């Protein structure tokens, strides 16, 4: 399973692992679809163990954000490697997402 779900300070934290690409994006999306269907208000996506993201992976994260926004949910991305962060910059997505350095910052700015 590429996504493990945890809880800290009442916040849902999703730990994504490995590559988020054309092959794995549908599996990455599934657990988020469940969280979204139950209108989870605040989600932190910890990307520390993500080694590669392609366009379909970025689009999957955009879709998750879009679906959360539909009910007023909030999403933060944390622990992004510099390589993945540069991908967000190239595609101008760093302005769309709330990107924070680490889980601590995500929690402190959420509460």
């Amino acid at each position, binding site marked *: 399973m590429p996504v493990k779900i945890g809880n800290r300070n009442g916040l849902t934290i999703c730990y994504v692992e490995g590559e988020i690409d054309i092959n794995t994006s549908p599996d990455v999306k599934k657990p988020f679809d469940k969280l979204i269907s139950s209108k989870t208000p605040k989600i932190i996506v910890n990307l520390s163990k993500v080694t590669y993201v392609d*366009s379909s992976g970025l*689009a999957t994260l955009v879709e998750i954000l879009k679906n959360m926004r539909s009910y007023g949910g909030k999403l933060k991305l944390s622990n992004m490697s510099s390589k993945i962060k540069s991908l967000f910059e190239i*595609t101008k997505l760093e302005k769309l997402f709330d990107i924070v350095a680490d889980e601590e910052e995500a929690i402190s700015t959420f509460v």
Partner: protein
Amino acid sequence: MMEPEIVIKADNVVKSFGDRTILDGISLEIYKGETFVIMGGSGCGKSTFLRHVIGSLKPDSGKIFLLGKDLSKIDENEMDKVRMKIGMCFQSSALFDSMTVGDNVSIGLREHTKLDKSVIDIVVKMKLEMVGLRGFENLMPSALSGGMRKRVGLARAISMDPEIVFYDEPTAGLDPIVAGVIDKLIVDLSKKLNITSVVVTHDMKSVFSIADRVAMFYEGKVLEIGTPEEMKRSKNPMIQQFTSGSPDGPIRFFQQKDDYLERLVA
């Protein structure tokens, strides 16, 4: 200094159609991340070579390695997997006129992945943004100019995040300004996305503005490989003639008169 990673290698590739030898022992290497231009006059074998590299044609002899795979030793199944890692930008754009721009861009994603339509729609918007066609997804190709069609073809070529993009005469038939826009896009995408670009062209302005290295083809052979600057300084009279666009020189553009008369009475 680290050795560059070779993503394409041609080793003495020979191909004939009937009694005409089109590729006459082509050997070259293309490195990861570079923009490699194959230039040469019409009929020099450059497009035929491209078709061999993408596996559409098989050589009579010699070998081609694409992303580490010996194309002579892999079956269609494995070839399909390799093709997933390459993108192709055709000279004619090759858009499906019955489909919207968005459907043209997303065809590979719809055919070869299990991605949700909603995710594919977002990928399409991202790719159209990269080629400067924001908001064009619902238009039909017939509503587009030649330059826009090329850009849609480019968005489609990069839709599945390929490692290599092949361009066949990307600026053919475009005015100089639009051709310059396409050239800039090729360079930008190559650098931003770390894509290896292989461009077949006879547009010398393109060659000098986009190439990291250039191979000059003539009569199915590689005359010389070098940087654009090295090509400009080349002492080879054929390369000098081609880069200067001179009608006079060792490269013959017309059949011999005797040959013409022989053919008339043949």
